[in-house]
């Protein structure tokens, strides 16, 4: 029997704030298998980003256990198990695109030659070959976000954590990037955890959709996506797609996610 890449068992996380404790995660249990594309969807404050940050060891759960590649999140980070893509591209304005992608490689101590080949490889992977010498401000928002994905891929972690990476982009660019992301995922066989606000995006991308609801942040439904892995954009108009989207919407409603 194969062990899950990410295994969360009755995870709790309580933040101590000035207004008293806030239960950010409550009894969250979830297994993610290797090669899965898991989307987390829910309204603000449902803990989807917090869960991702726990996996990345940027937050530490106050209860329950969490294993990433069979290790604690802190150890997994030391082992370079994951690449993290934030909501904003967060490229350094004083570095060219290539040198931005090189940043983690420099920190992790890859050799100069190795850095060079890896940067070229991931630039091609995200369709930015030839843009290496440009500065971030010379690129569009969508290209910047692709560069930030390349940066997360550069050191070949097998888990890709993405926190609303396309949230700030317009719908046309977003569709295009979603298509590219699926292609990338198929080629690299990474395990992806993807936080989003958008139902169509979640259904289009995922093999598994985790519906969450706030106060306290918890999982209300886990939906296995039965769509085939090869997904052209117009799959979104098929009855199967709409049915799954409907189930996600129901799940969100059941969690009283639209209360206020």
């Amino acid at each position, binding site marked *: 029997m194969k062990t899950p890449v990410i295994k969360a068992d009755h995870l709790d996380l309580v933040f101590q704030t000035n207004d008293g404790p806030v239960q950010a995660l409550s009894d969250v249990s979830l297994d993610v298998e290797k090669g899965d594309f898991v989307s987390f969807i829910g309204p603000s404050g449902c803990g989807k980003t917090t869960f991702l940050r726990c996996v*990345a060891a*940027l937050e530490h759960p106050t209860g329950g256990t969490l294993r990433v590649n069979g290790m604690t999140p802190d150890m997994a980070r030391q082992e370079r198990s994951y690449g*993290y893509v934030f909501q904003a591209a967060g490229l350094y304005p004083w570095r060219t695109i290539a040198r931005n992608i090189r940043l983690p490689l420099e920190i992790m101590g890859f050799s100069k030659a190795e850095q060079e080949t890896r940067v070229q490889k991931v630039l091609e992977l995200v369709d930015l070959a030839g843009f290496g010498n440009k500065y971030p401000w010379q690129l569009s928002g969508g290209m910047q976000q692709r560069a930030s994905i390349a940066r997360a891929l550069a050191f070949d972690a097998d888990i890709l954590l993405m926190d609303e990476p396309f949230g700030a982009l317009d719908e046309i660019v977003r569709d295009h990037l979603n298509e590219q992301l699926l292609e990338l995922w198929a080629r690299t066989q990474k395990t992806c955890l993807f936080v989003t606000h958008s139902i169509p995006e979640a259904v289009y991308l995922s093999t598994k959709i985790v519906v969450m609801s706030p106060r306290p942040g918890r999982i209300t439904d886990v939906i296995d996506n039965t769509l085939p892995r090869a997904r052209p954009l117009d799959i979104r108009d098929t009855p199967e797609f709409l049915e799954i989207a409907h189930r996600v919407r129901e799940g969100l409603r059941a969690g009283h996610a639209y209360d206020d």
Partner: protein
Amino acid sequence: MMTRSVLPILTVVMAIVALWYGGAVLMNKRWTMDQAARAGVELSLAEVVADTLSQDRPKLPAPHQVITELWNTTGAKVLEGRAFSKRSLIFHGWITLSATLLGFAIGTGLGIALAVGIVHNRAMDMSVMPWAIASQTIPILAIAPMIIVVLNSIGVQGLLPKAIISAYLSFFPVVVGMVKGLRSPDAMQLDLMRTYSASGTQVFSMLRLPSSMPYLFTSLKVGMAASLVGAIVGELPTGAIRGLGARLLAGSYYGQTVQIWSALFAAAILAATLVGLIGLIQRITLKRMGMAR
């Protein structure tokens, strides 16, 4: 493009010069009249104006007098081959400049070191800033003589005491600017570094330091101007024999207003040149870093 920026500047300069001439006539008229009355002569308006603009010790020297004095003590000395004589502003300017630059270097170094400490050490964060602010509330004129006296008593004389006064003024803007600069990376950029398990040194050299560059240059400009003021103030209590501060002091002892004004202008020109130089280095550096568009 050029004329559009030159014209307003020229207009303002002309207005100031006109005001200045008017003020010189009004302020120096009294002396001219007194002299004429004593000699028992009647002066025409043209004669009065001419005299007010060419007195030896006017209350307010006319612009051309200041410019002539500036030329006589700089360019003319160079032509005579005596650029570093005691009567040359180049000599005095160099004395002040050397103290300014040394003080600026000490102040900038101290300022950056304190800022790094404040950003990385909680105890320093809580304790240093109030003291830094308090240090700037003490009038520099009060503390400068004490620094000179204390250092003199332990045998330190010459350049260093002046440089320390100058550093005393210039470290402050650098601390404030660098603390802000080193803290300018947002939470997301810091989290990104954490996901790479970057060490504190790596976060500093790859993220905090480059982020702080625009802030650093801004505070360097303020610090440079403060350094010059500090060096001049540092020249006043020593009895003042050398430096622009000495020229100011000697001028006021002997009522040499033209000398005071020319020293003032020399200081202003020096400050503008130094600040302009930092601006140039800033432009080149930020351009090379790719931060200027």
